[in-house]
């Protein structure tokens, strides 16, 4: 990407300074998550079951940018939504969102994006020589694991804290989101693979570069 990348080491992300392109990616992907929360749901399949694009955009940010930049992008989105921009789903905004039952999902977004990004980097590094199919399956597993560990767990926790639901009731309330999540993660992986094919310097070349040095 830029020459400064050569000074970047994969081992010490804390010392990494993001380049101007990284800043652009972080800002525009944060805007992408915001815009995805505002557009209407898209129809899927023959029956046209509508799914919202927001969690798709969150997971894709992780798969496309890798852990650090994805956390920054989705974290920026959450921060500005809490600060009062009407960018949460349904045009909601402000710190009041933290008191609603959906608070857990919102807090989970940056963590899930970072986890998906971290796992994606591991998968991309390990499957450098393999066929695209294995890579796709493993990326799907990465996205699923991160969304179960973070989005669903924190979502259930949020409903327990803010709506005082019992664990089993909160779990049941969260259950209907699973089928949509599976569809979204399949879609996210297929789009992420196309993105990496179209823009190899987005994440793939970084991963390989780090690989050579390790």
């Amino acid at each position, binding site marked *: 990407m*830029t020459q400064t990348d050569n000074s970047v080491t994969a081992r010490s992300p804390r*010392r990494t*300074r*993001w*380049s*101007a*392109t*990284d*800043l*652009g*990616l972080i*800002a*525009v*992907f*944060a*805007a*992408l998550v*915001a*815009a995805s929360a*505002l*557009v209407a749901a*898209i*129809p*899927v*399949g*023959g029956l*046209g079951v509508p799914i919202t694009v927001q969690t*798709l955009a969150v997971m*894709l940010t992780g798969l*496309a940018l890798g852990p650090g930049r994805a956390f920054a992008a989705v974290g*920026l989105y959450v*921060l*500005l939504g809490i*600060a*009062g*921009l*009407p*960018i949460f789903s*349904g045009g*909601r*905004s*402000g*710190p*009041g969102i*933290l*008191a*609603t039952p*959906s608070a857990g999902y919102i807090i989970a977004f940056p963590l899930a994006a970072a986890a998906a990004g971290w796992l994606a980097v591991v998968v991309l590094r390990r499957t450098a020589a393999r066929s695209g199919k294995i890579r796709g399956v493993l990326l799907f597993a990465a996205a699923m694991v991160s969304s179960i560990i973070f989005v669903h767990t924190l979502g259930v926790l949020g409903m327990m804290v*803010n*709506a*005082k*639901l*019992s664990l089993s*009731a909160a779990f049941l309330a969260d259950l209907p989101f699973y089928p949509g999540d599976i569809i979204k993660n399949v*879609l996210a992986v297929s*789009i992420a693979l196309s*993105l990496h094919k*179209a*823009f190899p310097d*987005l994440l793939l070349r970084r991963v390989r570069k780090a690989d050579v040095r390790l």
Partner: protein
Amino acid sequence: MSGHSLLLASYVPGTSVVHRSPLWLKFLLVLGCGMASFLIADWAVAAGVLALMCGVFLLSGAGASRLVRAVRPLLPVLLAIGLFQWWQLGAPTAARIVLNVLVCVVAASILTATTPVQALLDGVASLAGPFRRFGADPERFALTIAIMLRSIPFIAGAYAGVRDSARARGLERNPRALVLPVFITTVAFARQTGEALAARGLGEADDLDD
């Protein structure tokens, strides 16, 4: 949707006492209500606090219709929770849970209705200040916020455009055709933005390795 309407979000201009009180005070109010929602154990107290918060909101001159608009998206969920908890835990507890959430939401709308979004964003950007010693860069942080704000209308427009072209090709039921072009546009737009920043000497980290 334009970027302008986004910045006007829920702000209602005015000169009331609430408008003139400092940002940190209103923030403390929101934080206090958040804490209180865990401590209030009696639904009557919760109802009293909610009435007080609604009073403060109306004092700001934002109007009752704004108040309704701030709460309305939540009502179906709160109704469902209220009914479920009524069945599970009884009416007083259910009322307390629902009222406590409403207290927090109304308190938060007091903050967002009486503070211009620009002031709120400046408040967020200044949060980076104390982290300067850990490598945070408040200027780059503020710049990133500004780029994000500018990009939201562009990407919302990309979604609309892609939807139109998918419909023209008879692909409006194909989620990949509806979403992938938006992401390609996004990445390309982000890289153009990065190049434009670099060309102007903006956004690059200082080489001082302090």
